[in-house]
């Protein structure tokens, strides 16, 4: 989140977005540099997931500038242009959304070969490497319905990586998982960030956000309330609202901070 724009891979300037009468984003400014890991935290309904959807053009804001990897996303008018952008920006969702009729390997291979037109043999090789990376090599021929939630989510991450994205968006990827499998997914994301993948995470895992982020962004009511290094947001912020929100971190564990409730 430095001032230099040369290395900025994502830049949002005064982004406003409404769904019907509901204002979801009320002037978002955010700069993310290449190689950074940024966590977006904040209460439910604060617009966190919508920010991610703006970045890969799944939703289009009413006003504001969005630049992603050199592309002015807000100026894209055709669906075909948005598709070109999405091929370069990976996104992983809360509900994994693997294709249930395809094996794990085919889930990973489908988009690169059919959508990008990549070579089949090379893609299968890449897919097996990615499966090794997410520690699921032995599940290549299994179907999603035969895997646990944590395993499915790791396959979903491998599937996103197979597109060789320039950055990856993680939208509450552990929120649907039982506590025992959260760790295995976070492990994979941690590895990815260490490898230098630009990552933007919407998360309720405060400890994890603190550990892996270069920058933590706190959102509430469609605005960015504050951002900065994790140390600042989690431990030395002057903002009483943020102190209140992250307050559960020290005492209550992850259950207490989920959704900002119970505080």
């Amino acid at each position: 989140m430095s001032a230099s724009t040369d290395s900025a891979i994502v830049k949002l300037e005064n982004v406003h977005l409404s769904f019907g009468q509901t204002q979801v984003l009320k002037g978002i400014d955010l700069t993310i540099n290449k190689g950074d890991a940024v966590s977006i935290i904040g209460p439910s309904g604060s617009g966190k997931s919508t920010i991610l959807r703006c970045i890969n053009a799944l939703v289009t804001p009413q006003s504001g500038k969005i630049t992603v990897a050199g592309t002015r996303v807000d100026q894209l008018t055709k669906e075909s242009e948005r598709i070109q952008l999405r091929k370069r920006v990976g996104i992983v969702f809360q509900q994994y959304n693997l294709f249930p009729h395809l094996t794990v390997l085919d889930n990973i291979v489908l988009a690169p070969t059919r959508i990008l037109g990549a070579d089949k043999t090379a893609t299968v090789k890449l897919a097996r490497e990615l499966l090794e990376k997410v520690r699921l090599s032995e599940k290549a021929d299994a179907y999603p319905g035969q895997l646990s939630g944590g395993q499915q989510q790791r396959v979903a991450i491998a599937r996103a990586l197979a597109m060789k994205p320039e950055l990856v968006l993680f939208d509450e990827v552990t929120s649907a998982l039982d506590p025992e499998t959260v760790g295995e997914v976070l492990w994979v994301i941690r590895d990815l960030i260490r490898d230098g993948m630009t990552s933007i995470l919407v998360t309720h895992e405060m400890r994890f956000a603190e550990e892996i982020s270069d920058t933590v962004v706190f959102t509430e009511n469609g605005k960015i309330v504050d951002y900065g290094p994790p140390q600042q947001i989690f431990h030395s912020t002057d903002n009483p609202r943020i102190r209140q929100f992250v307050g559960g971190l020290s005492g209550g564990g992850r259950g207490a901070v989920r959704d900002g409730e119970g505080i």
Partner: protein
Amino acid sequence: MQDMNLTGLFIDMMGRLGLNYEFLATGYEAQIWRDGFITTLYLVAVTIPVSLIVGLIFAACLTSGRLWLSAPVRAFVELTRNTPTLVQLMFSFLVLNTVVSNMLGGAQNNPLSPFFWVVAVVGLHVAALHAEAIRGGIEAVPSSMIEAARGMGFSQFEILRYVQIPLAFRSSLPAIVNGLISLVKSTTVGNAIAVSEITYASIMVWTQRDNVVEMMIVLLAFFSLINFVVARIGQWVERRLAIPGYGL
């Protein structure tokens, strides 16, 4: 000659049971009857793929979200579902076919045969049934899965092709097999416009021979056999496409 002897033996045995299959020993009537089987099988073999392909296209139009695609298909589906196939066939053959003939300057220039009209009418009628079943399956695919595919850069058509149709086809397969069984039976409407399928051929024989019961036994057995095979193929496909760990 061996063959003639077998036929003779069959006629003789059936005769003892009181069943009259003597026409089999004639050249002309036996030929019409044999051709009737072939025509029916040919009708079924052509109309099934027509109904499946058109049904898929109809379902794609119905779920496209584009009014200029969905509205005409919706209108056609409603019309064809709610009117008798026999009336549709007569209308097509007596009205549409005449219009085509007039446009081409006479019936001698019209390449469309009665066979064509049976395939078109029955095929499109069953396609409308398939379309409704497949549409239900397409709409049952969770929106979060579609968003995930969009997020990976799938176009709307690619989502349909690689995600929605494979899932919709599986969930609608039992309904599709029912549609195909009804299709097999519906090919008999061809006899109304003199397509010499098996019922037409049987009527030709029994008006000469007065052996309705004998012809009916064969007719019923023949259609039962075709639909037995259709149902078994359906079951086989269902098993082949079953997704491990998934509720389909």
